[in-house]
């Protein structure tokens, strides 16, 4: 799969992935610098390398340095977020639609991007992650608790402690401010309804639009037909996905 420089892709240890940088320069090796664990240098085969699914534990954040042959300097960088699994396997998207979509004819990059986009939309709209991830929040030193992500698991930055399922508090000397505070968060498992909703959303994203962009309805001989529109009738244009977001999401947090 081709990745652009200075972008972040999500890789799951449960799924084999071959990464290739989308540049014209000739490259020889990559150096993987994980947030947790030892750095690794891997040779490139045809410009690509297989992601080491068993040596870099999830969750993790890895800086990938792409180096020219014989050089130890980074010519390009990209970033990989490592999780334990994706919301659905890529094969599920390839076979989606009972023959109505034929997504298996599309390149893996396209399918991968659609899965990533659908995952991002679902997580943002539901204010939750259903896999363990690394999160961070900036502490400006003001009084009060820090609102981190839901399903908080472990605080990684010294001087902070977990106050509740989604809040942090300072516990000792924390300055100087502002300061990034890191933590891990995410639900233990992916409900099947969530998996299926993200799959539906990814498939919907892959289909070209069959109506004018921005149209919210149309008049017909039978009357006015209202289109379900993302951002107007919910986070997505699919009511069933919006229902899953509402059912499994954490909702908005308000502070009075």
């Amino acid at each position, binding site marked *: 799969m081709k990745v652009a420089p200075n972008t972040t892709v999500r890789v799951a240890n449960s799924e084999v992935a071959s990464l290739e940088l989308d540049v014209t320069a000739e490259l020889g090796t990559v150096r993987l610098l994980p947030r947790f664990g030892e750095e690794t240098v891997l040779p490139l085969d045809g410009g690509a390398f297989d992601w080491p699914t068993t040596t870099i534990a999830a969750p993790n954040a890895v800086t990938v340095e792409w180096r020219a042959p014989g050089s130890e300097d980074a010519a390009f960088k990209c970033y990989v977020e490592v999780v334990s699994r994706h919301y659905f396997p890529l094969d599920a998207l390839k076979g989606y*639609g*009972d*023959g*109505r*979509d*034929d997504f298996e004819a599309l390149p893996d990059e396209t399918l991968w991007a659609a899965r990533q986009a659908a995952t991002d939309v679902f997580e943002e709209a539901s204010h939750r992650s259903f896999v363990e991830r690394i999160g961070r929040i900036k502490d400006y030193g003001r009084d009060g608790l820090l609102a981190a992500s839901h399903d908080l698991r472990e605080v990684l930055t010294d001087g902070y402690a977990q106050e509740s399922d989604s809040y942090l508090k300072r516990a000792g000397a924390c300055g100087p401010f502002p300061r990034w505070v890191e933590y891990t968060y995410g639900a233990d498992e992916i409900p099947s309804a969530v998996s299926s909703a993200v799959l539906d959303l990814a498939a*919907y994203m892959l*289909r*070209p*639009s*069959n*109506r004018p962009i921005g149209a919210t309805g149309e008049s017909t001989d039978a009357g006015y037909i209202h*289109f*379900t529109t993302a951002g107007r009738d919910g986070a997505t*244009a*699919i009511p069933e996905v919006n229902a899953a977001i509402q059912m499994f999401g954490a909702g908005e947090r308000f502070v009075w």
Partner: protein
Amino acid sequence: MVTDFIRARDVLVQRMRDVFTPETFGVLYPETDKVPSVYLGFPATEPPFYVAVDEIVDAAATSGAATMGRDRVDFTLHVWLSAQHTELARASDALLCYIDAVFGSIMADPQLCNTVENSFPQIEIAGTAADSSKRYIAAALVGIECSVWTGCQPLIATAVAASNGKLAR
């Protein structure tokens, strides 16, 4: 007894099941790889590619007698055809192949295995539409006009004669 309607319909259903197979339809129409499922009656959970034979006939009528006591009965069998796809051309191409296959199936034996005297297929309505899942639907209704020379069943004739007898008294 089995009526002419049911006999003709059952022959049509069986013919659709035997034509819309990978071995026949799949080989004959390389323009599409969407071999439809065949149903008697409208499928309850509408599949993406289907051919459904209406379980009842329509527009049945008698007309001029062919011989004494034997009328010509005309009726129409209906077949729904539908295909859905992200690409409009693939949905419409699949549908046109379905229509062509239905027409060919009738022309191969217009007597419908000797259940009717003759039959003629025609498209009654057809069209394409975009749906809310960003796919396209192409659908058609094919009517197969059937004609059969038939007389009333002896048991009905007996019952009618008896009924007339009661009125005569």
